[in-house]
Structures are given as structure tokens and as C-alpha cells.
């Protein structure tokens, strides 16, 4: 090939950089995950569904009987179970998304070499990232629907706004899956993976999940408000309790940014790792 032809090829490549990243076939990656879930790890999927329900029953109904009602940020009184149920819903979306996008992805990258195989086909890194994240979303969506039905049965959805909690939960799951996969793609050992859990547990306990943010001194409140789960909890809580306001759009924006940042880093990293 002559220099001019090389230059032509290079300019073609530059003119359509997306072509190398995305083949428009994320669906095949999702279908693969669906098949794998069906044939080998459906037990994990089922257990992930019951975890938040057990929390709701023990804390919401058990502790709730002692606590009675709780005063929200907006000054409204809501039953304790109705206060924590949306938070648990957000948490379950987070957990489902995190499991699929961290441990699962880590295993596939480091041991099963699954992505190496995928990227030697016509798939691009963005297909892989989107496919894996969509599967995490689908699972998060199924958990959330089940949990919402339980909430409805227990009378914990206080408003018709609650219907919007479902897309909100998907948004939350998308955000966590996207960032989770990005972080995981930089991890090399099991020890590093444990750091993720070290971060998640306190975030779960302290993100205004079980009590209002106002119990904290101002400084700590800022820290909590910077973390992603708090935004998720507030967004879902606003919808299921019907205490909605325009300020909730900030929570939505927070997740949109998470999704975009996560996708950019994941795609870039997969490209470096498997298409050097």
C-alpha cells in the first residue's frame, strides 16, 4: 500500500471513529447474558430479589411498629415503612446493577476471557459495555417491579407518582452499572474488588436510607449529598410518597452524568485492554 492510500485509510478511520467502537449489536451480548443466567446462575438472581424484601419486612414492619411515623425533609409525616421502602427499592436497583457490573464483569474479564472472545468478532467495545449494562438493567427492572408490587400490597405506595418510580429505578441502575463496569475494568485483583464493597456498605447504611438526612451535622450532610445513592433514595422516595418537587430533576441529572462518564471510561478501557 502506498503512503497516499495509507493516508486515505487513516482519514476514513478518523471520519467514523464510532465504527470501530460500536457495531450496533449490543443485543447479542444481552442475549448471551440471558442464556447464561438461564442455564447456570439463576439462583443468584432469585436471592437478589428477596434480600430487600426481607429488609422491608424486618425493619419496615418490625421497627416501624415502634417508630410510627417519621418527618421528611419537606416536613410531611409518613409511616416509617413507607419512608424506608423507596430507599430499599433504590438500594436493590443499586445492588443488582453493581453485582452484574462488578463481580460478574471482573470474572468475565480476568478469568473467562469472555470479552477477548467477543472483541475478536465484529463487536466493538461499546457493544459489549452496552450489552452487559442493559442486562444489569433488565435484572434491576425485574427486581424493582417485584418490590413495587410488594409495596403496593403493603399499602406503601402513597401516590400515583409511584408509577414513575420504575423508570427512576432503571435510571439509578443504569448509573451504577455504568460506573461499576468502568471501575471494574481498571481492577486487577480480588483485593481491589473488595474495596468496592468497603465503599458500598457504608453508603447503603448512611445515605438517608433508614432516617432523614437532617439527623446529621451540616458537614456530613454535604458528604452524603455528594454520594450517588442519596440522590437515588431521594428521587424514589419523592415519587412513591408523592412529595415531588422540581428539585428532583437534579437527582436525575446526577445519574445522567454518571451514565455518560461510566460509558466513556468503560469503552475507552475495553479498547485499551483488548484492542491495543
Amino acid at each position, binding site marked *: 500500500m502506498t503512503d497516499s492510500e495509507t493516508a486515505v485509510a487513516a482519514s476514513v*478511520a478518523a471520519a467514523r471513529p464510532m465504527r470501530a467502537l460500536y457495531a450496533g449489536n449490543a443485543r*447479542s*451480548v444481552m442475549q448471551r447474558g440471558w442464556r447464561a443466567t438461564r*442455564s447456570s446462575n439463576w439462583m443468584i438472581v432469585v436471592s437478589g430479589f428477596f434480600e430487600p424484601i426481607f429488609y422491608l419486612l424486618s425493619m419496615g414492619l418490625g421497627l416501624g411498629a415502634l417508630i410510627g411515623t417519621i418527618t421528611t425533609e419537606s416536613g410531611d409525616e409518613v409511616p416509617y415503612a413507607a419512608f424506608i421502602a423507596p430507599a430499599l427499592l433504590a438500594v436493590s436497583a443499586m445492588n443488582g446493577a453493581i453485582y452484574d457490573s462488578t463481580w460478574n464483569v471482573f470474572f468475565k474479564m480476568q478469568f473467562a476471557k469472555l470479552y477477548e*472472545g467477543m472483541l*475478536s468478532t*465484529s463487536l466493538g467495545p461499546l457493544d459489549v459495555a452496552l450489552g452487559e449494562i442493559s442486562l444489569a438493567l433488565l435484572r434491576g427492572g425485574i427486581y424493582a417491579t417485584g418490590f413495587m408490587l410488594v409495596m403496593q400490597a403493603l399499602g406503601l405506595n402513597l401516590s400515583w407518582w409511584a408509577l414513575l418510580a420504575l423508570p427512576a429505578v432503571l435510571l439509578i441502575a443504569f448509573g451504577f452499572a455504568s460506573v461499576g463496569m468502568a471501575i471494574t475494568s481498571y481492577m486487577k485483583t480480588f483485593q481491589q474488588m473488595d474495596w468496592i464493597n468497603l465503599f458500598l456498605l457504608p453508603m447503603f447504611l448512611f445515605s438517608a436510607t433508614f432516617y432523614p438526612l437532617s439527623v446529621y451535622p451540616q458537614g456530613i450532610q454535604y458528604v452524603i449529598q455528594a454520594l450517588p445513592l442519596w440522590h437515588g433514595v431521594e428521587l424514589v422516595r419523592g415519587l412513591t410518597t408523592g412529595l415531588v418537587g422540581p428539585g428532583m430533576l437534579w437527582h436525575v441529572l446526577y445519574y445522567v452524568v454518571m451514565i455518560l462518564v461510566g460509558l466513556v471510561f468503560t469503552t475507552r478501557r475495553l479498547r485499551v485492554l483488548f484492542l491495543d
Partner: protein
Amino acid sequence: MPEPVIIAQNLVKKYKDFAAVDGISFEVAPGESFGLLGPNGAGKSTTMRMVGAVSTRTSGDLSILGLDPNGYGPEIRSRLGVVPQSDNLDTELRVRENLLVYGRYFGLPRKQVAERADELLAFAQLEDKAKSKVDALSGGMKRRLTIARALINDPKILLLDEPTTGLDPQARHILWDRLFRLKEQGTTLLLTTHYMDEAEQLCDRLVVVDKGTIMAEGSPAELIRKHSSREVLEVRFGSERNAQVAEQIAGFGDRIEVLPDRILVYSGNGEREMERMTQAGLHPITSLVRRSSLEDVFLRLTGRTLIE
């Protein structure tokens, strides 16, 4: 002469200061079976990754099926079949599912993939394992499944990186037989190996690679003719005496090579060299006359054995 399906000119791949591939040039014609023979770390796998459009070259020119991988990675990959060095089968899926799912990665229609999967299971002699778990397969079966998977998109070129490394002799022969059939059907094969018998069995033409550069190129027979004698006499005198005996037989044959465990005497007639040795009063512990192989070519070119 038909247009080559792979053209590599002065191909270089550097990782920081280290050049894994240092100026390799070769061409592969359609339907040809072409080999890269060399020891571990010679740059064979890196070359394969560049040809497979999953690694970007540092410099040089590369054309696969008439396309430059820098601009047409996905198009090239869609027309290649890749058998990597270590199996990366999907262990969460069953045997047949591995083929179905892989076909879908290429965006092929479901029905077409299903038909092709059944044909390939038959080809790989894995029909009765269709519903088995991948982990339950033997090493040779996994390898055959990996090859079947690589064929799901009906590739123009099949890339095989060390296809039989780690397999027992019987499994290797079954695999060679399958690859030979593909060759007969006109599939272009590009394979790397550090087994000279594999290269002799499967390659129409090959390059001997060492330290990222090409040492020689030709058909196995040509290379042997050019770089070695017809026969080799191998004698063992015990590790202490080998060097001492080597001095005594310095003029024997065309050339002598002293290895730690044996002496190789290159000659047109091995038996005659053996007779000369007996007349000189030398009685090796063991002796063997054999035909020259690619192993000898490699030894001649690099001063080292292929498997160290």
C-alpha cells in the same frame, strides 16, 4: 497469480522500548496454509493479533483481505476466524450454545447460525456433546469446539495460535486431521507453532521467526534442503564426554552441532558417518540416524532449539 489475502510489510509492534515484532514482511495467498514457526516469545502471537485486527501496529503496512485494519477493524474481524492460544470458550453456556451465541456476535440471522452450528458440531465430532457443559470436555474437545466456533461466520481466513499446544499426541492427530480437511476445502490458514512436526504437517509455506524478525522463508522441504543436510546422525556419549568427543570428530559430515545431551552430525548419509565413528574407535551409548527436520533448520539459523 491471485491477489494475496494477507500482505505484511515491515510490520513493527513496540511496547514502550521493546519491539515484540521488529520488521516482519510476508504474503499469504488465498487457500494457502502459512505458518509462523518460532520459540515462545518470538513475536508470533503479537503478529497474529495485528493480523486479527485486535492490535494496532506501531509501523509498517498491513492489508488483510485488501483492507487496512487501522480503518476497517470490524469489517476484517467479521471475515476472520480466530482460535486463540488459550481457549476462551464461554463456560457459562453449553457446547452448542457456544456456537449459537458466537454466531450472533457477528450479527448473523438466528436460523442460519443454528444450521451452521449443527454442521460444525458434526465437523468437530462433538454431536453427542451438544448439550454438555464446556468444563466437562477434554482438552482436545475444547480445542475442536474453539475451532468450530471460529468457523461459524464462514471465515475467509482462519487464524490459529498454537493450535495443539498442551494436547496429548492422539488429540493432536485428530485436530491435524480436521485442519487438513479445512485446508482441502480451500480455507486459508495462518498458524503459529513451536512444534516443527506440526509445521511440516500443515504448512505449505512458513517463516522461521526469532526475536521479532524473520530468519528464513520457504516450504518445509525447501527450508530443510537449503539450511540442513538430508540426514542427521544423533549420538550420545553421556553429558561429560560429548564435548570431548566432538573435538575428535570435528571433520565428520557437513557440520556438527553439540547440544548438552547429544551431538548432531549433519550429513547426506548418516550411516556412513556412523561407520567412520566406529572405525575411529568411538562407541556412543545410543545412536540414531534420521532425516533432517525444521528443528535442525531452526538450530542452524539461531543456534538454539525450538523448545527450551
